[in-house]
């Protein structure tokens, strides 16, 4: 139903009532959705911050390990765990990111529509459903039972690669898909070879989205507990070596302390470790976003 009747020739008619209602409903739904997302987040974060902030304020937390400290004693810090988490995540990313990005490039640039590409896509679909514990069991059976190697951070990183790869590959694929062909064509029209087009035009355009995928993957693997428990256990002292021995990490530090009742000092360390992990992931996130903002090619 038209709302206003004006007598000027170019009358602006408001959209019909039904359409306006639908529009308002959509706005309400979207607002409610955002609130629904923010509330549990604020809740979880408040819980973690309130329970864990106190220990983060002292430099001991950041510089000392837990060697010699028991759940019943105060003291020590999370240094060993921070180093372990970052080390394992970086090794995992060093394998998963190139593999994922190149795989996505293959799917979109070289293999679009071919049978091989369908096969790869299919395989990635299967990989995305693997539970972290099954990935860990696979690596355990392979590295430890068959190859006879001991526990190591590299074994964990390999298991984490299985978890990070689908996320990186899929998000890169979606982003590359969205790069308009006109960009590629313009580049070809200027005589630029295909690989240079991909490296200098397509990937930089999609860079922001690729970074999102990498960050999502990293956030996930840095928070994984089960593979670490099986493959690298937990060490309270400092261990930098990725190829030998057990190593501490923040999720396993949390796991080691969660069995204690709330009145023990170890319990507070659990939440402090959680807050530390969140802060590290966000730091990496911010860094990555800054890099992306300055390097993504944008259309004006």
């Amino acid at each position: 139903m038209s709302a206003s009747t004006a007598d000027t020739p170019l009358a602006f008619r408001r959209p019909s009532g039904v359409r306006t209602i639908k529009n308002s409903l959509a706005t309400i739904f979207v607002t409610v959705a955002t609130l629904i997302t923010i509330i549990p987040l604020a809740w979880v974060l408040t819980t973690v911050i309130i329970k864990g902030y106190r220990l983060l304020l002292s430099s001991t937390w950041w510089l000392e390990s837990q060697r010699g400290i028991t759940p019943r004693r105060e003291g020590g810090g999370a240094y060993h765990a921070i180093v372990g988490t970052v080390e394992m995540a970086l090794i995992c990313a060093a394998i998963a990111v190139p593999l994922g990005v190149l795989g996505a490039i293959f799917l979109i640039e070289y293999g679009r529509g071919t049978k091989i590409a369908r096969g790869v896509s299919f395989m990635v679909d299967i990989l995305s459903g693997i539970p972290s514990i099954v990935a860990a069991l696979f690596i355990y059976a392979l590295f430890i039972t068959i190859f006879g190697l001991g526990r190591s951070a590299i074994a964990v990183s390999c298991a984490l690669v299985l978890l990070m790869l689908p996320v990186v590959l899929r998000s890169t694929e979606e982003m590359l898909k969205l790069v308009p062909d006109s960009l590629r064509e313009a580049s070809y029209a200027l005589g630029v070879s295909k690989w240079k087009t991909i490296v200098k035009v397509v990937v930089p355009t999609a860079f922001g989205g690729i970074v999102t995928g990498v960050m999502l993957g990293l956030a996930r693997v840095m928070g994984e507990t089960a593979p670490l428990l099986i493959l690298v256990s937990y060490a309270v002292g400092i261990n930098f070596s990725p190829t030998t021995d057990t190593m501490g990490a923040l999720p396993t530090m949390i796991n080691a302390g969660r069995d204690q009742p709330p009145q023990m000092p170890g319990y507070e360390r659990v939440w402090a470790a959680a807050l530390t992990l969140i802060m590290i992931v966000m730091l990496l996130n911010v860094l990555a976003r800054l890099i992306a903002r300055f390097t993504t090619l944008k259309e004006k």
Partner: protein
Amino acid sequence: MAVTDTDATERVEPEPLAAQDPSLSPVVDHGAVTTHSPVPKVVAHRAPETPADHVEREAARGVKLAKISRTGDRIFRSLATTSGLLIVLLVLFVGIFLLALALPSLQADQDSFLTSRNWTVSGNELRFGIAGLFWTTVLSAVLAMAMAVPVAVGVALCMTQYLHKRVSGPVSFVVDLLAAVPSIIFGLWGLTVLGPFLAPAAAWLISKLGWIPFFERNVDPKGSVFVASVVLAIMILPIVIAISRDVFAQTPRDHIEAALALGATRWEVIRTAVLPHGRSGVISASMLGLGRALGETIAVMIILTTPSAGSPFSPSIFAGGETFASKIANNAAEFDSPSKTGAYIAAGLVLFVVTFAVNAIARIIAERGVES
């Protein structure tokens, strides 16, 4: 993408070059322009021709153009193809290896693997089946998806279509914060904070709808599938939001402007320009979220109450249960024998199959959407 200046109702003369040489540029079906959508839809998509290919093709026609070196292309192409093949080999290897570990136990299984709810995996008589595990895993994942995907799409739309760019930056940051929380903390928070909070709501639901088996009371609501699903939904929100946000942000401005120019309300712009364009991306994001929900181990292990060995099956969302992942994790410490390990791995493999099936269906839906 280059035909937005056409009048929505007129047929356009195809450019001569495109008519002679269909291998150039995406094929646009101008017939589609007359349907309800104001924007022509891409039907088939062939990769644009690179200069090196063009040189070769012209050479075949007898036209000499300056040679463009292909070594860089060849190296890069082989790099990309190798990655793709490596991934295929990796997944095949993982699958076959695990299958080899699981087969002896499967063969020794006295019960039907798919329908039995027993789980006796030590001793001489192996009797195990995944029916109970399957139900709990699928139920919790489906509930989580049902809660998370609509909300995530809503938030992504809000961030890209409704909010000012300055505001959506912090909101983005906040969503990424959610992704940064480790899963074990979600488990602890879900058990100690969310569970007790949801208990009254659960009690109310049970009192009103408890006569339906789906809602009947079973275990202490703090450890029920209901609470686990809510926590899983919260965990998969960031993945779906982040990817959907990126996808929606890439909607071509001219599609949106064309819709606006035709007098669409904001919702109609979303419905006609943003959502169809982002459909495949959203489905991909949801599949990643589903993968996460199906494979989440430690949070589910901490929250869910395990039912005792002989208890009767309950389809209720307020029952406890074990998912594939949580069952394996609960018992991973005690894998003393190959037959025991094999049984658990067999359970894990079922998850592969489930994920593949769902993803395959989703992919068919996504592809059909592009073609219609």
